[in-house]
């Protein structure tokens, strides 16, 4: 195998490790990149090198940023007294896509898990409690996954913030937009029924 082929194979192997890609799709992607070296591959390599160099965790909320403090935490307009607690950066990005929350975030980096032996100390829960006290927070919104681990973590945080005077709320659970009742699981239907509101 020539050096060039070996380099391409190594690239394919690396690409195949990405989520959503397998060896065949990685091979297709690499071929596409090679064919469009100037328009796609070079700018992509440059962008990746830049992010690899500069990406870091925001010291305040745990979001991924290219500076010590992320854009959301440094934006004064977002100091609304509300902190939205999410499990992961992907959840923060999902909330931001919705453009309906204008406060700040706190990324836990996981949930309490009996299976994986993740405890409160591994998550940023003490850091969250400190933030709530420092920033004069009025409301903490728990936007955690509707799973056993997510809800266990939500209860733990609510308990950790008891006595601080801050309002602890959580996202509603129920019928998704475009959802058909016939296709919903019974857990979601009963949660939706419990959270019904006057129409």
């Amino acid at each position, binding site marked *: 195998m020539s050096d060039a082929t070996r380099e391409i194979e190594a690239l394919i192997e690396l690409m195949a490790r990405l989520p959503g890609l397998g060896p065949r799709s990685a091979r297709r992607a690499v071929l596409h990149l090679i064919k469009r070296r100037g328009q796609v591959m070079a700018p992509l390599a440059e962008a990746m090198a830049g992010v690899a160099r500069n990406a870091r965790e925001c010291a305040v909320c745990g979001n991924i940023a290219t500076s010590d403090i992320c854009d959301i935490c440094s934006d004064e307009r977002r100091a609304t007294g509300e902190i939205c607690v999410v499990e992961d950066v992907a959840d923060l990005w999902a909330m931001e896509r919705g453009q309906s929350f204008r406060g700040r975030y706190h990324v836990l980096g996981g949930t309490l898990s009996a299976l994986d032996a993740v405890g409160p100390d591994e998550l940023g829960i003490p850091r969250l409690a400190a933030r709530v006290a420092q920033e004069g927070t009025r409301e903490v919104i728990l936007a955690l996954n509707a*799973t056993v681990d997510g809800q*266990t973590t939500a209860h733990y945080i609510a308990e950790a913030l008891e006595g601080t005077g801050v309002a602890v709320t959580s996202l509603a659970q129920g019928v998704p937009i475009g959802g058909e009742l016939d296709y919903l699981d019974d857990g*979601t239907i009963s949660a939706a029924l419990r959270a019904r509101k006057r129409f």
Partner: protein
Amino acid sequence: MDWRDEALLLSVRPHGESAAIIEVFTPSKGRHAGVVRGGASRRLAPVLQPGSQLSVAWSARLEEHLGHFIAEPVLSRSFLWQDRLALAGLSATLALLAFALPERDPHPTLYAATQALLTSMEVEGWPADYLQWELLLLEELGFGLDLSACAVTGDSDDLAYVSPKSGRAVSRRGAGEWASRLLPLPPCLLGETPTDEAELADALATTGFFLEDRLARELGPAPIPEARRRFIDLLQRRAK
């Protein structure tokens, strides 16, 4: 090889990008693992939540293979998630089963008791049922406590302690100067209704000793699941 049974879902782990490896507790096969194709998909993820009651069909070419499950929902127990204590109890129950049960070893009595416990979690007072469930778990796994009579005097009244060595009851008279070395035997361990959460916490400390010192030690270096400690902590905080 294939079989079909009802099952309590104990745990779910992602497997690859779209599949999941689940562990279930069934009446006829005990704790059993298998792959669910598409188990991480949007359609199946809500169904595959720990604590859910499922109807499962398992198949594999050979019995010793991991095999595949086809899982259908029977009952979601997500209604327990709103109650902090019930969720902690549910997590402790599932974690203990996943931790302690040997694979593919049926325990139909424990299965029935687990179903009854999870059903009782909807109403107040269920932690006393949880205590009885832990006693049954110890018994089913060969570490049962004998609380029928005093190990020293043979008396069946005034039982106040449990011997940490034998797991047998000891009466106040039989304990004598050894009382400080024995574990407490609150009346609720003998099946009476606990007077308060403090009594229950004492009883769970006693079962906890045998879970930790006997069962977990027998199983290997891993400690008792953290979920149980969190549940007991919550009970103790409520007792204060």
